[in-house]
C-alpha cells in the first residue's frame, strides 16, 4: 500500500521538478522505507539542491560602508605602490624565449648585483651562481613607468635570498635539473650550452670549468632551498647563509638604482643547433 502511494508521490515530485529552475539537482527519493525506518529517521531530509556560480562583475554595485572602510588602507598602499622608480622601454614576460629570458636575467642579475655585497661583507666569500625559479616570476613587466607596485606584482611573496654551499658535484646535478626541466629558470654566473640531444656543449661557472671538490656559493630563495620545485640538490648543501634580504626588496632596490630597465636575453643558457 505504502509502495503505491510512494510511486505517486514520486510522480508528483517529478512533475514539480519539470517546473523548477534549470540549475537544479533533484533528489528523487524513494520513500518506501519511510514507514519502516521511522526510528532512524529525523524526519527532515534534502529533497532538492539548487546551485549558482555567481560572477562578481561591475554590474553589482559596491557596498558603500565596505568601500569606505577599505579607503584609508587603499590610500596608504597606493601612495607607496605608485612611487615611480624607473622606466621600461619595452614590456617583458617570462614566456618571451626558451632557456633564458630578459625578465628572468634581470631578476638573477639583480640578486647577483645587490645580494653579493651583503654576502661578501658577512662571509668574505662571493656568490658564484644565482638560481631562481621560472614559477617565481609572478607577473610580466609592463612597458612604461616601473613602480614599487611592479616589484610587488613580479614578486608578491616574502621569500628571502639564501646562499647555499654546493660542491661541484651538486652544481652538476643542478645543471642536469635545468636541462631536464627545460624551463627558463633565472640564472646568473653560469654559462650553459646544450645541443639538440640535451648533451652539454659548454658549462662554465664564473667563466671557469666546474671543479668537483670546490665549494660553490649558490644564491637562491628559501623556498627553493627547502626543495621547492623539486630542486632536491639543495638538500645536499654543506652550509647555508640567510641574508635576511627579500627578493622583492632586491627588485625595489634594483629599480631604484636604475633609470631604465632594459634587460636582454643573452648566451647564459642556450641550445646550439
Amino acid at each position, binding site marked *: 500500500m505504502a509502495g503505491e502511494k510512494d510511486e505517486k508521490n514520486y510522480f508528483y515530485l517529478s512533475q514539480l521538478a519539470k517546473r523548477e529552475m534549470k540549475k537544479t539537482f533533484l533528489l528523487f527519493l524513494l520513500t518506501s522505507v519511510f514507514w519502516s525506518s521511522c526510528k532512524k529517521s529525523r524526519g527532515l531530509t534534502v*529533497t532538492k539542491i539548487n*546551485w549558482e*556560480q555567481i560572477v562578481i562583475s561591475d554590474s*553589482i554595485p559596491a557596498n558603500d560602508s565596505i568601500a569606505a572602510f577599505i579607503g584609508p588602507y587603499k590610500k596608504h598602499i597606493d601612495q607607496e605602490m605608485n612611487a615611480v622608480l624607473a622606466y621600461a622601454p619595452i614590456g617583458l614576460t617570462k614566456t618571451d624565449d626558451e632557456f633564458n629570458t630578459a625578465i628572468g636575467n634581470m631578476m638573477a642579475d639583480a640578486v647577483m648585483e645587490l645580494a653579493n655585497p651583503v654576502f661578501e661583507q658577512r662571509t668574505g666569500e662571493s656568490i658564484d651562481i644565482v638560481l631562481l625559479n621560472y614559477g617565481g616570476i609572478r607577473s610580466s613587466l609592463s612597458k612604461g613607468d616601473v613602480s614599487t607596485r611592479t616589484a610587488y606584482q613580479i614578486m608578491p611573496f616574502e621569500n628571502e635570498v639564501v646562499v647555499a654551499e654546493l660542491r661541484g658535484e651538486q652544481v652538476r646535478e643542478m645543471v642536469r635539473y635545468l636541462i631536464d626541466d627545460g624551463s627558463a629558470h633565472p640564472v646568473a654566473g653560469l654559462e650553459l650550452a646544450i645541443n639538440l640531444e640535451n648533451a652539454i656543449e659548454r658549462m662554465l661557472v664564473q667563466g671557469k670549468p666546474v671543479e668537483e671538490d670546490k665549494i660553490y656559493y649558490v644564491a637562491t630563495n628559501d623556498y627553493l632551498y627547502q626543495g621547492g620545485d623539486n630542486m632536491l640538490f639543495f638538500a645536499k648543501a654543506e652550509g647555508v647563509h640567510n641574508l635576511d634580504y627579500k627578493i622583492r626588496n632586491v627588485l625595489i632596490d634594483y629599480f631604484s638604482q636604475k633609470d631604465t630597465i632594459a634587460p636582454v636575453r643573452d648566451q647564459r643558457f642556450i641550445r646550439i643547433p
Partner: protein
Amino acid sequence: MKRRKFIKQSAAVGAVVGVGSLGFLSFAQQKDRKHITILHTNDVHSHIEPFGPDHAQYPNKGGVARRYSLISRIREENPNTLLLDAGDIFQGTPYFNFYGGELEFKLMSKMGYDAATIGNHDFDNGIDGLLAQLPHAEFPFLNANYDFSNTILDGQIKPYKVFIRDGIKIGVFGLGIELEGLVGKKLYKETKYLNPIEMAQETVRQLKTEENCELVICLSHLGYKYQQEKISDVKLAGLTKDIDLIIGGHTHTFLPEPTVVPNSEGKNVLVNQVGWAGVELGRIDFFLDAGVNREGQGATISV
C-alpha cells in the same frame, strides 16, 4: 524537540493527504519545507579590490565591496544563510604585505562570514603571523586534520562547528593540505598533518551521531582533483560517507557546475569550488522536506 515532532507528524499527514492532489502536496511541501542557503568563497588571496579594466583574464571582476552587496541581497531573500571560506585568505596583493591579513579578516567579519578553514598560504607569515591576526576574525577557523597541540595555535582552532538555521543543524568542519614541501617548516613549525580521510570520518561520525546534524559540510583546502594519487576533494567524497557538500580550494578551479560524486555508500556528494581572487561567489541552496527519508538506499541526484 517539540517543534521537530510537530513537523514530523504534519509531514506524515501531508504525505498521505497530498497523494491525491498536486496542489495540496505542493502547499504542504511549501509549509514544511526548510531552505538553507550556503554561500562560499576560496583562495581570495587578499584580493580586496576588483581586478582592473586591463586585466587579461578577469577585467573588472571581483572586489569585496561588490561581494558584500551580493551577499546582503541573498540574505534578504533567505536569512537562513551560511557564509563560508575554504582557505588561502592571505597573500597575493600588497594588502597582505602591508597589513599581514588584518584587513582581510576585518572585512570578512563585517561581511558576516560564519566560518573559514586554513589554507597553506595562511601560514605565509608563520603560525605566529596567523595567531596575531586571529583577534580580527569574528568567525571561527575550522580544521580537523592539523594537530596544533605543540604550537602557539593550540586551542585556537576547532575541528568543527554546528550552526542552526531555521531549526536545521548544519555541521561544518575543515580539512587542510599536507604542509611539508608546500610551506616552509619554519612557518608551520610543529603543526602535524593527520590523515584527512580518517579525520573526516571521525568528525562526520561525531556530527551525525553526537550532534545530530541534518547537513554536513566540509571546508577543504585539499584541492579539487590531481593526476597523482594525492588526496583531493573528489577522492575524499568517494571514500567517505554522510558528507552533503565539500567546498574546496587550493587548485583555483573554476567549476562550471558542482561535481556530483557517489560516496562510499553510493549516495551523492556535491563538490564545489569557485576559482580564486573573489571573482565568483558560490551559492548552494538546500531544500529539506519532512516525510521523505534518505535512510533507504534511495537518494539519487539528477540535473
